[in-house]
């Protein structure tokens, strides 16, 4: 499968050859947008129209900007989680990574007043190291990812709680306002965190779809043994998937600090791993590995956040949003199952 993607595009190639490769590529790769993603887009659009009709306040800047700022970290973690799930794994320790990164960065900002780039680099680096721990244990320990990440989730949470030391971190300076929901966090009215997430999503989409490394992720998820026999360095690729998730989670931790108040409580990040997995699954990525896309994950995160904001703005109990998210997960996975079954029978 990698024969076409591995062919160097090379500008010197004759025109006929060029067209041949392009045609071949079009056959090997699925259509850029899957059916599930189109349906998701329609569902999100329908929800937005319905919410706009129900509460006029929904389609205002005061409502949309917080929605986009709130969805950015979930979508960002979801991008990494998509790659991990495509390889057939899962990472339930991201909430612990968010916690460790957030408390270290917040303490550094309060204690030594570090600048914005230093804070981001620090957070991303810590996230990468924690992701590396996951990746090495999973790839070289040859243990199922869910068990290892349950274990490291406990370890990271322990680390985070020790760093918090039983109190909250107070008086956090506004260094990260660039990612926040305030005036400093927007360009042309669009929040920076959302834009950065979109850029990373586009890069990840290209990586997964058009580079050998990305195709290898799908191959590993489809059949790890076959991938190894075909020459894929399975263990190294798996480690890189978890490191990528760690790096993105580190950046997401900066977004999480920025969207909050000047106080950071020890419950930061709680539940974000399930929200990210929900976004990935609603986006049509198969939990069995080998199938999925980043575009779907971003739409899934948007759907989850729309439901959450919508429920609050309609004046319903905010906990009802969890019920709707659960139902959406079941519908999304059910639609995927149905499509697979019809494809197999036809």
């Amino acid at each position, binding site marked *: 499968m990698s024969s076409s993607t591995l062919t160097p595009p090379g500008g010197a190639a004759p025109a006929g050859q060029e067209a041949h490769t392009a045609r071949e590529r079009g056959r090997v790769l699925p259509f850029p947008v899957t059916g599930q993603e189109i349906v998701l887009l329609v569902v999100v659009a329908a929800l937005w129209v319905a919410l706009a009709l129900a509460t006029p306040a929904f389609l205002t800047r005061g409502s949309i900007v917080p929605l986009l700022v709130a969805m950015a970290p979930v979508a960002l973690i979801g991008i990494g989680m998509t790659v991990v799930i495509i390889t057939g794994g*899962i990472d*339930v320790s991201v909430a612990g990574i968010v916690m460790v990164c957030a408390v270290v960065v917040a303490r550094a900002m309060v204690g030594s007043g570090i600048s914005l780039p230093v804070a981001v680099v620090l957070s991303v680096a810590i996230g990468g190291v924690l992701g590396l721990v996951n990746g090495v*244990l999973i790839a070289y*320990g*040859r*243990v*199922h990812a*869910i*068990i*290892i990440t*349950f*274990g*490291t*989730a*406990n*370890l990271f*949470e*322990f680390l985070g*709680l*020790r760093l918090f030391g*039983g109190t909250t971190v107070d008086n956090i300076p506004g260094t990260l306002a660039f990612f926040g929901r305030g005036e400093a966090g927007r360009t042309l009215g669009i929040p920076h965190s959302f834009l950065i997430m979109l850029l990373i999503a586009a890069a990840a989409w290209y990586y997964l779809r058009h580079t050998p490394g990305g195709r290898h992720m799908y191959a590993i998820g489809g059949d790890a043994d076959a991938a190894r026999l075909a020459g894929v360095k399975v263990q190294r690729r798996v480690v890189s998937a978890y490191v990528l998730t760690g790096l993105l989670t580190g950046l997401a931790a900066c977004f999480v600090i920025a969207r909050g108040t000047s106080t950071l409580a020890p419950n930061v990040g709680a539940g974000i791993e*399930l929200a990210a*997995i*929900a976004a990935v*699954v609603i986006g049509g990525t198969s*939990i*069995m590995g080998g199938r999925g896309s980043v575009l779907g994950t971003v739409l899934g995160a948007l759907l989850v956040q729309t439901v959450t904001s919508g429920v609050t703005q309609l004046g319903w*109990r905010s*906990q*009802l*949003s*969890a*019920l709707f*998210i*659960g*139902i959406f*997960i*079941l519908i999304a*996975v*059910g639609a995927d*199952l149905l499509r697979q079954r019809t494809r197999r029978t036809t």
Partner: protein
Amino acid sequence: MSTAVSPEAPAPAPRPDDGSAPSESRLRQLPALLLRGLLTQRIVLLLVLLAAVVVTFLTLSARNYLSAPYDAGYLSVTLISAVPLVMLGLAELLVITSGRGGIDLSVGAIVSLTSMVFGFAYGEWGWPLWSAIVLAAAFGGLCGAVNGFLIAYIGYPALITTLATYYAFSSLAIVINDQQPISTRPIQEFFSAARSVPVGGGEDPLQIPLGILTFLLPTAVVVWLLLNRTTYGRRLYAIGTNDVAAEWTGIDVRRTRFTAYVAAGVISGLVAVVTVAQFASARPDAGVTGSGMALPAITIAVLGGVAITGGIGRVAGVVLATLLVVWLNAGILLAVPGNAGSQYQLLALGVVLIAAALLNGLANRRYGRTG
């Protein structure tokens, strides 16, 4: 265990020795045999770890390093926290053993929702205790049936289904009574079900939590009988090991898997009754506060030697793993005072789980797949 005495490993080359050769080579193999037993027999490993933990803390206690004595009395009182852990661990045992990625993330949410239902029946509508307990078990079974139907009959992946029902059930539990706990008089008096009772004679009998006798032991015995003495148990192991082969031998794979999820739901319903008694209140977030009840239960099951791929798992492993975790946690609480104690419990749980999982992988590679 005794079967391990006949190793299939490359037998030592026959030595031109005198008559004492067999016993001597047997003796020389002893360390290797012990290592093999430790690595492949999870029960043996857990027993050794359990003994190590208890002896360590007894020694620390004897030298006054701990804030309170770590003795038989303390050990038996701390068993109260083992009741929900063992029961949910057994629920996960049934579900994970059923194979095809079987797992149940929703047990904590079922506990929350069933707590509220039990609270309504016993605390508000004035049902008699036994019928309220039956209702809780039946309702838990109904929640499990939702999972089981979607997973076994429609073919949803278990991880995703139970993630979705985790969201749905925990949301319903909070909304059903407007976020308020139920703690009317009958519920408060139900706290007596969580008291300790003296067991054994003498002037200083051990205080055993009542929940051990009324809930934990019956559940453990029933699950053990189900797995080891009924055809259902053999079918469950069969579909977990290879569900295509099981299908071809005429087993109703779907129904067997469905029943495993229903049983997990019933057990979760009973755990709800236990938690209502412990809190003296039916709390809408009983099973999902903090890291919830599902993750510790899965951890216990994996530590107890349940293979995440299905088909392997024993009741004794789950019980021993719980004892290990509970008594380790109890010791940590005495050794590390204050808030830090509960944090070091997280560290201990994480390290033990990862070490056990890595050891499992090592044993599988060295000796092949074993229980």
